[in-house]
């Protein structure tokens, strides 16, 4: 069944024997760069494999590029870089790309130009004629990324695309992802690297042990800030009143941290504290990084 979303997972569960890899996972991506973020073993790779039909869900369903998982109609419109990227070591990079041009159904007359474009994009322009067997891991990952870009797919799934890359390579990948967004492609980025996700993703889902623990537009998730209050004479009632603004943590230095307070509400927090008889020495708005939020969510 066609769906407006480029990527749709509806109540997907995946079990390997007794191990639950995905637990009633639902998410929907319609545009932009989507970050699927989680620690190792959270089920990220399983989710992508289900999307491209390499694995089957135990329960649930969904669609990729408007068609069912693993169907030819869907696979014609996507590009995929697997987490375990290995290519035919006995072929040259150009030959591997030509093989994928052919399998992707590109007209033969377009191959040469497409391969040149891809090699230049992923920074392998001068190694096109070399055997893949002579490539470093990072170069193989660049090649894999190039393979995922063949034929300008509408949806690009990248599973840990920078795992083997140096800082320059990581920068290049970010640029490639931004370029994909520019031309309107939907990118599904699996990563355990928060900084990577923070820099390129429009929306994210944080997954842990097969479950989504937070999902939303990145700006919204990041807007969830906190405020540090150094005050004396805060009564029990006053503390209870402040708890209505957000979760309260006691800092080591006697300050309290109220989480989940948006910037506009900080004056309200202060007046509430003053009303309850507390004396305020410092108010420090804090912008929670995705990493802090990530760790906090996983710690729950």
């Amino acid at each position: 069944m066609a769906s407006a979303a480029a990527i749709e997972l509806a109540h997907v569960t995946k079990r390997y024997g007794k191990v639950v890899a995905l637990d009633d996972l639902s998410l929907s991506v319609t545009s932009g760069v989507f970050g699927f973020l989680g620690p190792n073993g959270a089920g990220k790779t399983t989710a992508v494999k289900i999307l491209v039909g390499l694995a089957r869900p135990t329960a649930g369903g969904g669609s990729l590029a408007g068609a069912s998982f693993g169907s030819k109609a869907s696979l014609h419109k996507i590009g995929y870089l697997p987490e375990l990227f290995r290519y035919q070591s006995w072929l040259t990079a150009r030959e591997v790309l030509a093989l994928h041009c052919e399998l992707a159904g590109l007209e033969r007359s377009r191959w040469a130009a497409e391969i040149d474009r891809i090699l230049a994009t992923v920074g392998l322009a001068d190694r096109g004629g070399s055997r893949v067997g002579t490539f470093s891991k990072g170069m193989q990952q660049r090649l894999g990324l190039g393979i995922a870009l063949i034929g300008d797919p509408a949806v690009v799934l990248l599973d840990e695309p920078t795992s083997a890359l140096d800082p320059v390579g990581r920068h290049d990948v970010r640029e490639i992802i931004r370029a994909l967004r520019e031309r309107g492609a939907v990118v599904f980025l699996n990563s355990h690297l928060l900084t990577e996700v923070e820099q390129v993703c429009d929306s994210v889902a944080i997954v842990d042990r097969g479950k989504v623990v937070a999902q939303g537009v990145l700006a919204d998730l990041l807007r969830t800030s906190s405020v540090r209050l150094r005050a004396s004479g805060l009564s029990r009632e006053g503390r209870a009143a402040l708890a209505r603004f957000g979760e309260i943590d006691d800092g080591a230095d006697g300050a309290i941290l109220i989480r989940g307070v948006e910037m506009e509400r900080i004056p309200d927090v202060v007046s509430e504290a003053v009303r309850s008889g507390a004396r305020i020495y410092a108010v420090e708005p804090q912008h929670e990084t995705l990493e802090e939020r990530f760790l906090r969510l996983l710690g729950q």
Partner: protein
Amino acid sequence: MTATFVVGRQVIAEAARRKLLLALVLLTIVVIALTVWGIARIEDLRSAGQPLSEAQRRTIVSQLLILVMFMFSWVLSLAAVFVAAPAISGEVESGIALALLSRPMSRAEYVIGKWLGLVALVLGYAIAAAVIELVAVQAVSGYQPPHPIEFLAFVMGEAVAVLTLTLAFSTRIAGMVGGVIAAILFGIVWMGGIVGGVGAAFGNETITHVGTATKLILPTDGLWRGAVWSLEPAVVLAAQTALGPAAAANPFFATEPPPAAYVIWSVLWIAAVLAVAVWSFRGREV
């Protein structure tokens, strides 16, 4: 359909690039050179100080050729096992299959493409090696086996049968394990053929049935009997047949070709095992 041929072509490209073809060509040249040299030396043999008669020479050449071709059929079948065993499992283990199978290609296209590529590889080698060997032997000895085309067909059928079985294993189990299992089965069936022959020689029905059963379960030995029959000159055939059922125990001899029904069975068997391979890989998560 395109995907099938792309996958098949890749099998041959890999064999060429990994220098498998080169190794086969070099080793085959060595084997052919040795047999040709050996057969040429038969001229020098003497029986009670006299040169051998034409009939004696022919008989010796024919039996030598059967032994050489028996080795050829084993090498061909085992080579088929070696190339087929990792054909799918190796790509799944390494991760090469992940990028391939996420292209618009069905699992059936992938498996059948692998099969076609492997069959082309094995048959191409079989035809080239056997033709050169037979032509070379004829050149030095003047001897030509009575049914060379049938011989080739039977030997190729034998190799394709064991190749298909090994490829089916490769959809589920590691290349090393699948290869060992297929090689052992191949050996068991060969032994089963001899056991069945012993049963026939001594008129024991139960033991004969064992041989028949193994020939049906994996048709390699049954097809080998067809190959060996194709190489028997009429004089040897007559002499051995005169021995009666006792000759049935000899794995290098067959009084008659396998019946047409058995050939049909072998073709259906190969098709069925290939279908099982496709079905098995369809259910495989990679």
